[in-house]
């Protein structure tokens, strides 16, 4: 919408200004959404059942995809790293290479991306449909906070389930690497696991843990935010779902790089 009072030569600046205001408004709303959710988390009464429901929805129902992608990621790593290391005669380091790749980087990132695709998108669509069918308004006018009932449990569930699912992804991936490296390509079992114990320490595990924890917050924050502020009916829900998945995925990778530079 262009203001007729604005001189034609200034209209590009008007558009730029409107875009800048929109960006600042959106960022402010995005930030205050998380603050509201955090205050809903700490304010009694605490609701256990909605939280357990969200843990089941985000965590338990993502198990199959986590186990499947974890196993194949480990197998691919096992194969590719074995072939690379065999050029230098260093196959013995297959175990630590697979484990470190998974625990520090691939486990948290791929598990988060998988859960974003499965549960994050569903979270956005669910909240979006609740918004357009006035269910969120109904909660509000009942003097019951949608933040407490819908958003806070999802974010807490993200914080709880992402590290657990990442741990599962890592374990299954390490066994996937074992399957290929030891069972198929003939590396000894003792070498695979023994070297792993030498090279992988608690710092690596904690790096993966902090990453998965923060991804849990990012994914549930973005996905609930996008669903909560849906407008324009079914098309709006579809758009919000796509935006939630894309934005979550991009933020996961950007934040992963950032944490990679600051964590030991």
């Amino acid at each position, binding site marked *: 919408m262009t203001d007729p009072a604005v001189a034609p030569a200034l209209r590009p600046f008007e558009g730029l200004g409107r875009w800048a205001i929109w960006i600042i408004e959106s960022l402010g709303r995005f930030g205050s959404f998380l603050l509201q959710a955090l205050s809903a988390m700490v304010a009694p009464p605490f609701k256990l059942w909605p939280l357990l429901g969200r843990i089941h929805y985000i965590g338990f129902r993502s198990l199959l995809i986590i186990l499947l992608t974890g196993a194949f990621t480990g197998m691919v790593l096992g194969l590719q790293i074995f072939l690379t290391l065999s050029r230098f005669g260093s196959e013995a380091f297959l175990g630590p290479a697979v484990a470190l790749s998974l625990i520090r980087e691939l486990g948290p990132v791929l598990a988060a991306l998988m859960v974003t695709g499965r549960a994050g998108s569903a979270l956005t669509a669910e909240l979006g449909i609740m918004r357009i*069918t*006035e269910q969120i308004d*109904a909660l*509000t*006018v009942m*003097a*019951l906070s949608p933040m407490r009932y819908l958003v806070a449990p999802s974010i807490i569930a993200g914080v709880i389930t992402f590290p657990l699912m990442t741990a599962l992804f890592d374990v299954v991936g390490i066994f996937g690497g074992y399957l290929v490296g030891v069972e198929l390509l003939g590396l000894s079992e003792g070498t695979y696991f023994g070297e792993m114990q030498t090279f992988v320490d608690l710092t690596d595990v904690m790096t993966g843990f902090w990453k998965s924890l923060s991804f849990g917050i990012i994914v549930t924050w973005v996905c609930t935010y996008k669903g909560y502020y849906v407008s324009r009916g079914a098309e709006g829900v579809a758009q919000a779902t796509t935006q939630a998945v894309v934005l979550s995925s991009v933020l996961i990778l950007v934040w992963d790089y950032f944490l990679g530079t600051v964590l030991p």
Partner: protein
Amino acid sequence: MIRVKGLRKSFGRQTVLNGVDLEVPDGSITVIIGRSGGGKSVFLKHLIGLLRPDSGRIEVGGVDFGRLRGRALDEVRKRYGVVFQSGALFDSMSCRDNVAFPLREKLRLSRADIATRVDRGLEQVGLTGIGDKYPEEVSGGMRKRVAIARALVTEPEIVFFDEPTTGLDPVLVNTIHRLILELHRRLRFTAVMVSHEIPEIFEIADRVGMLHDGRIVELGPPAAIQASSNPVVQQFIRGDPDAGA
């Protein structure tokens, strides 16, 4: 008493409410009529606190409701029941759980008390026996009745109805209106309804207000509205697309 004075609301450059004045006496049924897209639902959203006025005052029981936030706002809302246009039933819950939900979450009642009140609520709207079904498994008319039962189960002082009969056949429209009237006689709540069901709403309203161009252009008992000399009101009542309103 709900008292609205000089309520204004614009979205961008579009002015939707342009100085609405209205008084809703306690215990009455006040119906706001007006053309589709005329701002009736926007007005109702101000009364229930889902939108904030740009200017003007909304008083509920002497409190400036339009300026309230947080807990103070929720305290007033606890006296409210709202029936949304779509019903707004929680689709992940059975009809019975929908009715029980505000009781479980807002009042400290035993399970037995909740069950008793839910049964009574469903019975009042003629829906005994369908409680275990989910909203998607029942008809549109039944969904509206479940929504009415949910809105009334906490025995609110003020009940808002946003086009509660939209999308229903004429028989169901009258059934729902009769149900609202009967429940109103029994429970004595103050009702504010937005509707464009003409002439059916004249049967149940104590007062009717016509919202046009962002203002209440006529307000009075149904007979006075029907006899109004205001051409806008007459055009709306007759459904005449060619009148010069």
